[in-house]
């Protein structure tokens, strides 16, 4: 599998009268890992929902390999583009193997039978996500980290070359966050799966993504490598937060240290945020 290119052209979308995204243009790196970051209610999830066909844009289009996804039959699209929504729920009592098997849905018509290829795809998805040992366990009985790995396994069984994830690390402790993100990097490296994920944690985004898209009020404020995007100017504009950027000694990527009104070493931040002169020191 090679990655597919995903891009948005002049995208305007929202709910009812409320416009969330304003004529957005963006390109997702083919075969790369892209993180979408931004403040609450800036349109991150709306963007992901529009890019995965859950939401029909008011104007503009989303192109998968140059073809509009809103003009692609849903099942054909679901064979190429997968989505893991934010905190999905499994029916009570469903087992892990059963749930992961549902990922094969788009590969079946009304009457087609389950084949050996389906078993192979499910088995592989469960092996790479480390959920094989859980096959007969019920989803409800799993820990948060295990559950998230099962949902990723289901998305993998779908065998798409683009995978969109809406905050895949929410509600996970830090060890499980790292585990899930490491797993996504493995998949990206092994299969060339194009990965697009909404992340809240800027430092994790900088660490795991090849490219970062920073959204502010429904506009694309910045796009590029973590080094390009994660600057104190961007953070101030996107989050209204004063910060200092240093180089993460572990990964060599940029790392954001927020300033607080209570920092003893930064007394000037006591003033209202907007008027704070930021001391950007990009190492």
């Amino acid at each position, binding site marked *: 599998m090679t990655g597919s290119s995903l891009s948005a052209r002049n995208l305007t979308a929202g709910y009812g009268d409320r416009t969330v995204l304003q004529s957005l243009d963006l390109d997702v790196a083919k075969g790369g890992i892209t993180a979408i970051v931004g403040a609450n209610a800036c349109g991150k999830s709306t963007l992901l929902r529009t890019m995965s066909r*859950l939401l029909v844009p008011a104007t503009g289009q989303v192109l998968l390999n140059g073809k509009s996804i809103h003009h692609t039959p*849903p099942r054909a699209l679901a064979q190429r583009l997968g989505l893991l*929504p934010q905190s*999905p729920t499994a*029916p009570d009592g469903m087992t892990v193997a059963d749930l992961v098997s*549902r990922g094969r849905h*788009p590969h079946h018509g009304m009457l087609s039978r389950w084949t050996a290829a389906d*078993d192979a795809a499910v088995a592989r998805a469960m092996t790479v996500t480390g959920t094989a040992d859980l096959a007969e366990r019920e989803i409800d009985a799993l820990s948060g980290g295990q559950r998230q790995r099962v949902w990723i396994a289901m998305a993998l069984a779908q065998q798409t070359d683009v995978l969109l994830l809406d905050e895949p690390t929410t509600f996970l402790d830090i060890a499980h966050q790292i585990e899930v993100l490491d797993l996504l990097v493995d998949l990206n490296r092994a299969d060339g799966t194009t990965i697009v994920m909404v992340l809240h944690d800027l430092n994790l985004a900088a660490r795991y993504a090849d490219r970062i898209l920073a959204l502010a009020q429904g506009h694309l404020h910045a796009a590029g490598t973590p080094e390009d995007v994660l600057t104190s100017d961007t953070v101030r504009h996107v989050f209204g937060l004063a910060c200092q950027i240093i180089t993460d000694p572990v990964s060599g990527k940029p790392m954001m240290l927020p300033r607080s009104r209570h920092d003893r070493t930064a007394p000037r931040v006591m003033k209202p945020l907007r008027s704070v002169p930021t001391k950007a020191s990009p190492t």
Partner: protein
Amino acid sequence: MIVSPPRTHADLIPQLSHQRRRRERRRLQIVAALAALLIAGGVLTLMVGQSTTPLHVVLRVLSGEDVPGASFTVGTLRLPRMTLAVLAGLSFGLGGAACQTLLRNPLASPDIIGITAGSGAAAVLGIVMLQWSGAAISVLAIVGGLGTALLIHALAWRDGLSGARLILIGIGIAAMLNSVTAYVLLQAPAWSLQEALRWLTGSVNGARLGQALPLLTALLTFGSLLLVRSRDIDALRLGDDKAAALGVRLGAVRLQVIIGIVGLISTATAAVGPIAFVSFLAGPIAAWIVGPGRPVLVPAALVGAVLVLGGDYAGQFLLPNRYPVGVVTGALGGPYLLYLIVRMNRTGRVA
């Protein structure tokens, strides 16, 4: 015995396919067992009533032979009653389970959220006010059921559909429509208590074989609308977003499923009245039999038929008095509804 966990996906494939085959076999066994139970129950109700007719006599009547006495009790009394009970039960069970699955809530069955009440009210209005009968009543019941479905949908819609809001609005609409039925029944000139009871609780008293044909036609038409979509209905249980991400056409599937549900429930209601709680109970009972997380449509249809057939038989012969089937199923469904409400109170959400 401790099975060592599979290390590679090559080890896992045979394990998965073995478990899947076992699940499929178990599912077939359950469906076969329920079908056998239904057939046995059907034969029993043909044989044993206030008098007992031997099996060979029942078979002779069924083959069209004229047997003095037996032709009347079996052919005219028991057979239409049994046929109607089975067909209505299949319709209520299938429609109810599809509705609960579509709305992902055991409380969201057609008899709770007002679809049955809408069909019943339309049928009673048609019979009493317009003096209609036969197929026209079925069509009117479908129109009434569909109208009710659209009404609760429109009232519950606010930037999307919330199951809890839809259920509460449906319960209110059902109460209003039931009072319409009661009012119209009071205006009816000279109806027997039996006739009125059919429209209040549901009954297969006085069934005629001619009523079975519209019911069978509706079961085949609307039932197949649901069954061809069973895979998509199953995917909907993962939530709208996840189902859409799996390639389910949400709007089209939902419309087709709602038409299927309303068609089944309305035609059955037009024939035998709103038999209490059958569509509410069949899905959960079937889910309990097939195990959690497994598809329930076909087992639920069979459970529905067993409930109506068994309930009617119990109401006729096993209880101290004669009761219409709806009273018996109502007595079964009430406690389960209370259980759901208690659980809802404890968890703080609607089921």
